[in-house]
């Protein structure tokens, strides 16, 4: 609906299981090139599972995931990463024994080295704190700093599609604002496509062009961010009780 309107990621009828437990019950999601799309929903709805399924771990049992014209449903994770998808996972899975610099280098492992200096500068502009901590081991960073590092590392891979799983988790209000501003800028200036899972529904829906609401592994609603913000049922379920 935004950007070129060309579909970058298309998820069709995807069902994912953990053993016998069904986590996704036939999910359809589209992300168009140049769009920011968000998925909101309560804890345990299956949002993170969807994000992980896109990355091929766990793989979808039925349904199809097409990225940039290629069927990636059964592709192994490392090959999917080669296609320009980067994920900043929930719970900030950085490399704890590597330094901040080494973590960022890992993020850039698949990228032409000529971009490195410039990309590094951009990440440090976004998170000056990482620059202060450049030689420190990832595991010794504070929780919020690890979150910054996880996002920074994802950006270093110059993704075409950035998957962010709860980027605001554990971050100070001021930093959350900066991150959301940064996502908006990256989207606007560089056409970065973003798929965002957030608990912070108010911020996420205001940022996103479109949003989906997930309940128990099903998509129950979709629409523009503004439309969803206005929906009574969305407000009742995800927005009431404060907006921070």
């Amino acid at each position, binding site marked *: *609906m*935004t*950007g*070129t*309107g060309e579909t970058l990621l298309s998820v069709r009828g995807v069902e994912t299981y*953990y053993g016998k*437990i069904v986590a996704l019950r036939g999910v359809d999601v589209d992300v*168009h090139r140049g769009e920011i799309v968000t998925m*909101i929903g*309560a*804890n*345990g*709805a299956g949002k*993170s599972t969807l994000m992980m399924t896109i990355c091929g771990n766990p793989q979808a049992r039925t349904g199809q995931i097409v990225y940039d014209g290629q069927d990636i449903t059964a592709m192994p994770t490392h090959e999917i990463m080669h296609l320009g998808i980067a994920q900043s996972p*929930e*719970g*900030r899975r950085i490399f704890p024994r590597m330094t901040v610099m080494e973590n960022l280098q890992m993020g850039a492992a698949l990228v032409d080295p000529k971009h490195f200096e410039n990309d590094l500068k951009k990440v440090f502009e976004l998170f000056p*704190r990482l620059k202060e*901590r450049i030689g420190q081991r990832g595991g*010794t*960073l*504070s*929780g*919020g*700093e690890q*979150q*910054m590092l996880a996002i920074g590392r994802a950006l270093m891979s110059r993704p075409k599609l950035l998957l962010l799983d*709860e980027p605001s*988790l*554990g*971050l*100070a*209000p*001021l*930093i*959350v*604002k900066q991150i959301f501003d940064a996502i908006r800028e990256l989207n606007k200036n560089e056409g970065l496509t973003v798929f965002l899972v957030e*608990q*912070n*529904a*108010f911020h996420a829906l*205001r940022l996103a*062009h479109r949003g989906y609401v997930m309940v128990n592994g099903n998509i129950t609603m979709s629409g*523009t*961010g*503004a*439309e969803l*913000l*206005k929906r009574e049922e969305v407000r009742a*379920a*995800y*927005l*009431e*009780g*404060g*907006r*921070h």
Partner: protein
Amino acid sequence: MDAMAKKKTSEAAGAHRWENDPVLSVEHLTMRFGGLVAVGDLSFEVGRGDITALIGPNGAGKTTVFNCVTGFYKPTEGRIIMRHGLGRQDDTVSAVTDSGLRFRKDGDKGVFLLERMPDHEISHKARVARTFQNIRLFGGMTALENLLVAQHNPLVVASGFSFGGILGLPGYKKAEEAAIEKAVYWLEKTRLVDRADDPASDLPYGAQRRLEIARAMCTGPELLCLDEPAAGLNPRESSELNELLKYIRDEHGISVLLIEHDMGVVMEISDHIVVLDYGVKIADGTAEAVRTDPRVIAAYLGVDEEEEIDIPEVREDLSAVAKDEPPEDKTPAAGKANATGKRAAPAKAKPAAKPKARAAKPAASASEVKVAGADKHPGKQPPGTKKPAPGGANNLTRIKGVGPASEKKLNALGIWNFSQVATWKKAEVEWVGSYLAFPGRIEREEWVKQAKVLAKGGDTEFSKRVDSGEVATSRPGRGAARTGGKGGKA
């Protein structure tokens, strides 16, 4: 309630509870890692029966303070006093400090110097419990088992150090039943009863957070330390957390010390807030005192979106709009002529609808178009006209930020033309932002500025992209929306 009465008396004395009756005192705490000073000479107190929040930017040293209090780190310098029983007990504190002992317990009273105690004693004897920022449950155990492990100490004693348990003596059986009862009580309070037999690692994130709190409560703490309990919770779940924490404070009389970034939680439930930045305390006081402290705003909170209107560019923009208007329009109560030259309907004073402050807005009815609940939104409804200006309505989706849905809504308000949007001032922008349910966006996307350009027949970057068909949510061309015509769907 006793606690409330106590609070009142202490307030009457002009002092706060954390000064009169601190359960925990952190004095001149310093923690160095090599050359890095994570916490520098920090002192603060936690009132008995208070919810105290420790807030501050990422990397400020909050979790380090927790790790010192709970014995995960041995502080480089400083004293950390935990007290059971009322009052400051200053004499006992100095006596214990001088004696070189770790703690002194005397019936219900007790003084514990946490910096001298190993972590298991801090949990078991000083009765300080904690949760972790990165959840640390026993993933392979069920929710119930996690809560039973938390009661390991009393159970071991009751089992006569295993033998009674093996033989199945009645004393142990009783203790085991009591432990299960306590576990079930906290599973109920944290709404996890139906997940009691599921492995902890299978629970969704928010449930794991609640299970951590339940586990901490099962150790029977005097002080509960929570490291980001609301992280990963949506606003609804956060407000449930608020209720749980208030319940723990009010019904169990437990003091709570929490680290949290969710200001919906912090500001609503905290009796006392301590703010750190770079390991140093920058503010300490009640929620009201802290939230307005300029140092806290600068270092931590940032400026609220709604206040962004105060940033210079926007203010300039708005004052420029004001200048374009004929001077008589400056009087807010006057029946306004809008920019299309049409006479607005005479201001029908609303029959003092609600006694609320907002009802007292005289200009709310300066529009030809009446909207139900117009006075529910802050600011002022912009003057709308029943029909577009001569020449027809403009394509409002050429304004960046206006999609077909918003355009329809604007039309319903009697807003048809760029020239109308161009006259909006702060009050109208605020009202429309609230009406369309995206406060702040009109300012951010500068609708007014765009509309001024478009009204003169000019083009913005965005409208050029619209006209070349690049923006799927907008309709190319200058014409109005065709009723039922093709919307924005790609």
